[in-house]
């Protein structure tokens, strides 16, 4: 009979395994981030700052003077290791969310959680590719949520603040609760040991605004 800590370890590893099935890597030629499979027909969500200037919808940089670099391509690497081209469906620098589309079907979507109901103290996991380490996980707890948190940038925006480290390569990757349900996408650090995620209800609102369709299975905001 496994002791309590061993049971806890198994539970944690199960959550990470489950979340990794919906985790992708988003590459922009130089540098990369993470992304989360939102819809089985190829809809990926990530941070706007991960895709940067890929905004023309064809997976190419916006032409800015004569500096277009055609060798840079936007691609997504799926959990099975295959890499496919991606295009930006919509991007919102202010909310720091982007929606990507890839030509794929029957992808394992992530379950959605409730970022408005989560309480300080609850256990959470960030899964991504920190410093390029594929599928790496970190655990921490929710510090607090909302738009009135100390020393946050863009203070009118809502954040999910977490006591874990968000590193380059984590951006756009899933933050999940103890049942592996998406609470937000990991976005930035707000101190040496404290990370912040864009809450899933902000992402749902973004998708509704930009793509026009209400998000199936998500409580309307």
């Amino acid at each position, binding site marked *: 009979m496994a002791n309590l800590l061993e049971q806890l370890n198994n539970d944690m590893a199960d959550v990470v395994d489950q979340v990794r099935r919906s985790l992708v890597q988003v590459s922009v030629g130089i540098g990369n981030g993470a992304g989360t499979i939102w819809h089985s027909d190829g809809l990926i969500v990530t941070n706007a700052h991960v895709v940067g200037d890929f905004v023309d919808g064809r997976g190419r940089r916006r032409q800015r003077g004569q500096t277009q670099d055609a060798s840079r391509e936007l691609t997504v690497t799926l959990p099975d290791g295959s890499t496919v081209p991606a295009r930006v469906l919509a991007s919102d620098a202010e909310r720091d969310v982007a929606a990507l589309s890839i030509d794929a079907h029957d992808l394992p979507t992530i379950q959605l959680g409730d970022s408005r109901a989560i309480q300080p*103290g609850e256990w959470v996991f960030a899964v991504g590719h920190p410093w390029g380490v594929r599928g790496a996980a970190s655990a921490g*707890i929710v510090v607090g949520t909302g738009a009135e948190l100390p020393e946050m940038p863009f203070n009118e925006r809502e954040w999910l603040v977490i006591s874990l480290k968000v590193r380059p390569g984590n951006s756009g990757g899933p933050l999940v609760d103890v049942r592996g349900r998406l609470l937000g996408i990991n976005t930035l650090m707000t101190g040496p040991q404290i990370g912040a995620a864009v809450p899933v209800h902000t992402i749902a609102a973004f998708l509704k605004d930009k793509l026009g369709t209400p998000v199936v299975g998500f409580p309307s905001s």
Partner: protein
Amino acid sequence: MADVLVNLSNALADTVAQAGQGVVRIEARRRLPASGIVWSADGVIVTAHHVVERDDNITIGLANGESVPATLVGRDPSTDLAVLRAQTNGLTVLGRDSFDGLRVGHLVLALGRPGKDVLSTLGIVSALGDSWKSSMGGTVDRYLQTDVAMYPGFSGGPLVDAAGKLLGLNTSALRDVSLTIPTPTLDRVVSSLLTHGKVKQGYLGIGAQPVRLPTAFREQLGQETGLLVASVETDSPAEKSGLLLGDTLVAFDGGAVRHMDDLAGLLAGDKIGKALPAKIIRGGQLHDMQVTIGERA
């Protein structure tokens, strides 16, 4: 599936919600507010000295969302503690951890309330030890170091155990690791501040510097150094007790005196007015004498 993890997560959130009732916001500096601990139901609040940057115009934000004015009762920079009093009643006081079962590796939570809501970070007890002296000469009854992240505004807030019981007050000012001023020290300092408005400190009235002892004394006393008396203030407790320029103080009140820190530690407030045994080297001879401690003004 995932029962242990789900239960753990729910238990942590419950602990934060419950213990958060005893955590208040302290508005006593220009930038971000900090946190404080409800010490008594009738409005005594303990917080960190370094977050109380002004003596007046202090506001406390209660767990129920109310804001109430508070006055400064006193502060002890040596332990980085301050006591405030708010005109209110019916506050929730946290239960206390006895420290008896506390071990390195136990889960602990740091709580804060720099805004409206309680916030929390999680960690484990990293190190436990006996009493230590802060760089400003304050005695801290236990060494309690954790790896909890100190989120902005967490200074002055509580460290609680897994059951939400108070272990002490978190400060980021004394060392650059997450340190907690344990409840026995809070008891001592708060009671002194409530009674006297300050923490009493003993006083001798000497200037001294550590010197290496002659070989014979090193072997006899089992210590390498003592304190050479380089000046004696007029009318000071040291002068009245007969300490002279050139004496080397090697022991006081039963404790060895090797460095200035040793002496500072032996000059605790509860020794004021008492005649205590001292050992000095004078003229190449070891002498015993009595020294009566005064009070630092």
